[in-house]
């Protein structure tokens, strides 16, 4: 093998090996994104907090307090080998699937859905964590066929998917279900699903979307409002569009924005609009490019993986990250109907932040260039 010879630093300590094998570009992008998230939380959330009668820096304290923990979590996980990721992801998948089901009985009902568990002093949304773990568990199922051709990979992957969907739709959480579906369909596609099936699943997904429109009244109402803005309440999206126009090229300047004063979700789903108003087109383009860079870089690194499982898992994680970013940005820019989805690492939300750290940590681990990564066992 030439791998050892080409490793840039012949340091054999754990950290040395880590530094030599980690994708430093991806790591750098993550750090920048966290910094952007911190700045934008500072910009957007005090207005919301004081409107809710909380201490102005309530959200800032919580989010900025969690950021080092999230970063530590991501870096620690990135030390793992692909096999370690597989074990961790699968174990956590089982745990969080159980917790997601538990929300149905023990969950706290917020706005008609049971998605949260109250544990001691803080609340947890297990389905956020379920997403990245699902990507890893499903990848294992698809990859298992490589080692054992008789393994019913497709069947197992479908079973996992059905279990997760059952939990998410019972809550109900249609948005999360859509992201999980995107991960699953993406991995199935990568795992060599025949094109005929690809077409069928696309049709099925379309059918699912139509069914969601017909079954869930809040989904129908949002899509109606998207297609015909004259109908009913389009307050948030109108204010958001206005914010982009007000921002222009350079923005009104930090702290000068007004849209955050009125948008209920300024610190979460519509934080990008706040950024646009205060910091302008150039910064926002930078954010879009940053997200594009992370997603594309991650996928390209996945492409370079020799290990089939690592490739599928990393791709699934990046598809999740990318879909979430694209949907949030698309909603802010009124390209998509309103859907409560956070902008990864930027929007306020503890569960979301830690879950994303878990996901990006596993991505970093999976995209390491390990000289002995040719085989898992």
């Amino acid at each position, binding site marked *: 093998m030439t791998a050892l010879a080409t490793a840039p630093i012949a340091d054999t300590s754990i950290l040395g090996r880590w530094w030599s094998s980690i994708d430093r570009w991806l790591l750098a992008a993550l750090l920048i994104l966290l910094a952007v998230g911190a700045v934008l939380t500072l910009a957007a959330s005090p207005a919301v907090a004081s409107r809710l009668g909380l201490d102005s820096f309530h959200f800032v304290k919580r989010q900025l307090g969690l950021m080092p923990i999230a970063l530590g979590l991501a870096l620690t996980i990135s030390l793992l080998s692909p096999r370690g990721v597989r074990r961790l992801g699968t174990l956590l998948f089982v745990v969080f699937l159980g917790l997601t089901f538990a929300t149905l009985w023990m969950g706290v009902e917020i706005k008609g859905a049971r998605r949260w568990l109250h544990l001691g002093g803080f609340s947890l949304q297990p389905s956020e964590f379920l997403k990245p773990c699902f990507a890893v568990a499903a990848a294992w199922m698809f990859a298992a066929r490589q080692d054992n051709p008789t393994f019913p990979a497709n069947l197992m992957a479908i079973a996992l998917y059905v279990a997760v969907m059952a939990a998410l739709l019972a809550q109900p959480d249609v948005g999360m279900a859509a992201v999980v579906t995107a991960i699953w369909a993406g991995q199935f596609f990568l*795992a*060599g699903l025949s094109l005929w099936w690809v077409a069928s699943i696309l049709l099925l997904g379309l059918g699912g979307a139509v069914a969601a429109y017909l079954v869930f009244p809040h989904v129908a109402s949002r899509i109606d409002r998207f297609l015909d803005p004259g109908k009913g309440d389009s307050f948030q999206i109108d204010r958001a569009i206005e914010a982009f126009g007000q921002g222009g090229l350079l923005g009104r300047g930090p702290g000068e924005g007004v849209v955050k004063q009125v948008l209920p979700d300024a610190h979460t789903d519509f934080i990008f609009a706040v950024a646009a108003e205060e910091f302008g087109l150039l910064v926002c383009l930078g954010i879009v490019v940053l997200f594009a860079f992370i997603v594309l870089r991650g996928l390209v690194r996945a492409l370079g993986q020799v290990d089939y499982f690592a*490739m599928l898992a990393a791709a699934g994680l990046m598809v999740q990250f990318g879909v979430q970013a694209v949907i949030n940005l698309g909603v802010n820019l009124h390209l998509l109907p309103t859907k409560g989805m956070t902008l990864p690492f930027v929007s306020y939300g503890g569960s979301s932040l830690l879950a994303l750290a878990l996901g990006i940590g596993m991505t970093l681990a999976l995209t390491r*260039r390990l000289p002995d990564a040719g085989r898992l066992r």
Partner: protein
Amino acid sequence: MTAPRTAGPTGGYAFKLVREGAGRRAIDVGRIRLGVTIGLFGIAFAVLAGRLVELTLFAEAEPRPTRVVAAKPEPGRAAIQDRNGLLLATNLTTASLYARPKAMLDVPGAAEKLARVLPEIDAASLTERLSGEKQFAWIKRHLTPRQQQEVNALGLPGIGLAPDHSRIYPQGALTAHVVGYVDPDSRGLAGIERSFDGALRRGEAAELSIDLRVQHALRDELLRSVERHQALAAAGLVMDIASGEILGMVSLPDFEPQRPGAAEREALFNRAALGVYEMGSTLKAFTTAMALELGATSLDHKFDARAPLQYARFSIRDDHPKNRWLSVSEVFVYSSNIGSARMAMDVGIARHRQFLGSLGLLEAVRLELLENGQPLVPRPWREINTLTIAFGHGLAITPVQLVAGYAALANGGIAVTPTLLKRTGPVEGRRVVSAETSVQMRRLMRAVVEQGTGKQAEAEGYLVGGKTGTAEKAGRGGYQRKALLSSFVGVFPADAPRFVILAVLDEPKGRKDTNGYATGGWTAAPAVARIVNRIAPVLGVMPTGRMPLDMLPPLIAPEAGAGGMFEEEPTRGPVHEIAAHGDQLATR
């Protein structure tokens, strides 16, 4: 990044690894498709960037005005109307008072002021309720416009009025079981409110077959009978026999649909549609029609009623035994159990069952309510079941089923589907008996009122036909002699029937002026007569001076000495007989 990786100093090893066979191919497929995925994401981000430029630099400079339609205007739950467009249920837009305690400046002061405007509020308990860690609390639902104005005039911060809807039932208890009721958030819980919940929400009004005038007369007269005879409960129906439309449906006791929570469970139960009962002799009409259709040759065909009918351990007897052969007419008019059982026996189990099935008596009716009773049909259906069902025991059906069956016998032989919705199109039906049989049934039913147990159903000026029924209710350990289900099914006008009317009384008590009798002929039949007298003018039925059916030769020769009216004795199922013979029910 897509440059050949073999050239790079650090990235080359990956592709050089040799993997064999299928694994290699799978990885290759994965890589190609990953390339596609990367392309798609690239396009998506490019579109986002483009849109971002468009919105920031090229959007209209003027800020868009905020639309005032903050909440989408609720279409409101649609109305329910009777067949003539009278309102049975409608919506009232109201406002409900709420508090956001955190935004309130002075909770006790505000509570004090509110209590002055809304006397039913207690300031102290309201203060307590609003003092917790609450974000939101309702203070009072559905304020009147005056109260709304007064609350607004107080100008209290943290106190607000939210638009709300209240369901109103202008007819109150009159149509309670048909229309049903809703929960505080206007979700249908019973009756049409429940079965048409979706349509009503979408704003589609429901137009019922109910005629409020008929409904009122029916309920009023049933109430009178319940009071007169101290009955536990009652049910009544009026049906248009040509269309199957139900013009009146009453179940007593009933309730105020505005406050279903205040009602007893007994009162919420729809006896007319959901309750199933062993109806007793009224079922003999079906046996007789079947005999005319399938067995007996004419009304004069004779059946042996000389002695009680013995079947295995069971004994079927008449309470006023004639102890002779009886014609079809006599079996029906004298309400002979023995004769009815023999008629059914001649037809046979299979055809008996098939005939009752064709009348819709063996399956739940598909009335437009979720409260549709499932008939209790014997399984297995043995010969003894045929014998007892012939005179009305061993088969429990809903009053709606009974009325629908009579409609088919009286309207020329066509079974129509009962409905609670006003019919607009043509009515479809199946023929179940011949037109001749139908004519003969009309004559027989008229004879019951003219000469038999139903004399008190005679309504002055109108021709009523029908059949009485007095069934001992099945209770613990057999049939109970004193607990009767007394009924009368009337068809009118008897010469050219248009309507079926049913009155059922649950455990009516005898009175001095009924000679102590509590039978269908003494309790339910007079109710039907009064109902006919009240609804005939409303339904456009002219009083007849001449009585065409009366001109037909009498079906039964008057018996010497019988003179007046003879009394129907209650029918009971065979269980009682077993008990009377010292056997145990459990031995069956």
